[in-house]
């Protein structure tokens, strides 16, 4: 039986959406296991493969050049890409430094330079094509389920 190949990825954020995902699993673990193959899910497994992903769920905003590169790699290896949570959808609140005044920007500049940060923090859609959004901080559970079910049907898993 075909399963939906899913990846969960986390960028600059508090990982609250991953936590919501784990909470959703409380009632759904065995049901999801029947229809979902978790190809990439660092929070739950160490052997992760970034290849042939049907749907990539991505939380967090993009703050560094490395993250930008990784996001593009995820996009290349995934048929659909879903932004989950406010940071991924519109950048906030992980993008606070974008709104710092010049004084505060000066204070943090050496950290930004040292760890390869981009000039500004961006939501996913500024860098790659995003197929669906699940807004909210943390992400709205019902909306996530709705998007997941949509792709389970689209990929003819259910």
């Amino acid at each position, binding site marked *: 039986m075909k399963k939906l190949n899913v990846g969960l990825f*986390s*960028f*600059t*954020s*508090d*990982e*609250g*959406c*991953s*936590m*919501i995902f*784990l*909470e959703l*699993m*409380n*009632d759904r*673990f*065995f049901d999801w*296991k029947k229809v979902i193959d*978790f190809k990439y*899910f*660092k*929070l*739950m*497994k*160490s*052997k*992760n493969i970034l290849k042939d992903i049907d749907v990539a769920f991505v939380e967090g905003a993009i*703050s*560094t050049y490395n*993250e930008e590169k990784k996001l593009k790699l995820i996009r290349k290896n995934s048929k659909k890409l879903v932004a989950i949570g406010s940071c991924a959808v519109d950048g906030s*609140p*992980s993008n*606070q*430094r974008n709104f*710092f005044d010049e004084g*505060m920007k000066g*204070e*943090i500049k*050496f*950290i930004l330079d*040292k*760890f390869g*940060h981009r000039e500004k923090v961006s939501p996913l859609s500024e860098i790659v094509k995003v197929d669906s959004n699940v807004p909210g*901080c*943390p992400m709205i559970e019902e909306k996530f389920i709705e998007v997941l079910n949509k792709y389970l049907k689209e990929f003819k898993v259910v």
Partner: protein
Amino acid sequence: MHKDLDISIENLSKIEGHANLDIKVRKGKVEYVKLKISENKRFYTQAIRGKVFNTVPQLVSRICGTCSIAHLTCCMEAVEKALDIEHSDQTTLLRKLMTYGMMIRDHAMHLYLFCLPDIFGKDSVLDFDEKQHELIHHAFEIKKAGNDLSTLIGGRAIHPFYSQLGQFTHLPDKNETKKVIDELKRVRSYVFEIVKIFYDSQFSFRKRTDFVALTTNDFSFLDGVIKSSIGVSIPEDYYWDHLHRVIIPYSQATGFEFEGREYMVGALARINLNREKLHRETKKDLAKYIRIFPSENIFYNNLAQAVEIMHCIDHSIEILESKDFKKEPKIEIKIKEGKGVGVIEAPRGTLYYAISLDKNGKILYGNLVIPTAQNQIKTERDIRTLVSQNLDKDKHYIQHEIEKLIRAYDPCMTCATHFLKVNWI
């Protein structure tokens, strides 16, 4: 015996947040161990400056998804002290309950989803076979009970909104309370098994160390005195004076020493220092397991967490069954200049917030100290010792042992990267 060995782990798995590890061994000697916390800074300590006091607790809640309740509650304590806001006993009880819900959920996630696979020699709970399915049911039911408890009190389990400065804006519904009590009673029976599993586990790593924790009279994580295993006792307000910040150039987080030495915070520290204050039912039913503390075995941090789950369940049931929560008058807040310190025990250890307000109630500065940052130096040194002791083993074995040890510390990299004054050399 490895004379030369390089280990590089990109993106450690089954921990909260992002970290990498580099180890270099030359001529049979460990040259360096670098635990690189690679979680990107989100500059909360800078971002809160100039913001109005009552918006800040909800904002810093976003520092961490899994322990948002700890950040929210600790920051509120600091702001309340800065403004001399007194809260009622009822508010204290509700905060305890909300915190218990977080502890139950967070510890259960760590023990079942992150650590249990190591015990069974599997990569993930996703790979568990039928024999272990019952444990998966337990895992998710305990997590759910914790989640439902926090939701009952705070409105939701992550970034709850009923908990405000000085009071709760909403009281728990009677019918829902009954349901949560039943749920807690049901999952209580599951806790025995997970306690036994981590008690029986042969995983061991012992090293002399100082343990530090906020010790509370009823083991409720919120108000008390900071103690250490070498006998130091400090009021909350002065914790900062005993810490020494250590810059770790390759990590996005800052390390700390307590009184000039490496130390450990977290469940193991709490149980080592304060186990006699656990709930009487917990002490009665888990006496055999609690007896092995104090312990310097880092892997018993897992056992300590399992014991704490039981305590949180027992104390929550007692409070929910005996208290009738009533609507209280609205707290009046007078804005003024002031400073306040909040210290609580987050799931992973002692959390410190200092907040300074100007006369308009705007934040002049905020400072915070995160549990994982406090454990960073000890974790790194322990990895070094572990590698030195195992140079005769193969690389995969060493790597796996390191990962198990790091997981026992239950680090949260998402939290770890927040600190105000950072001067990278």
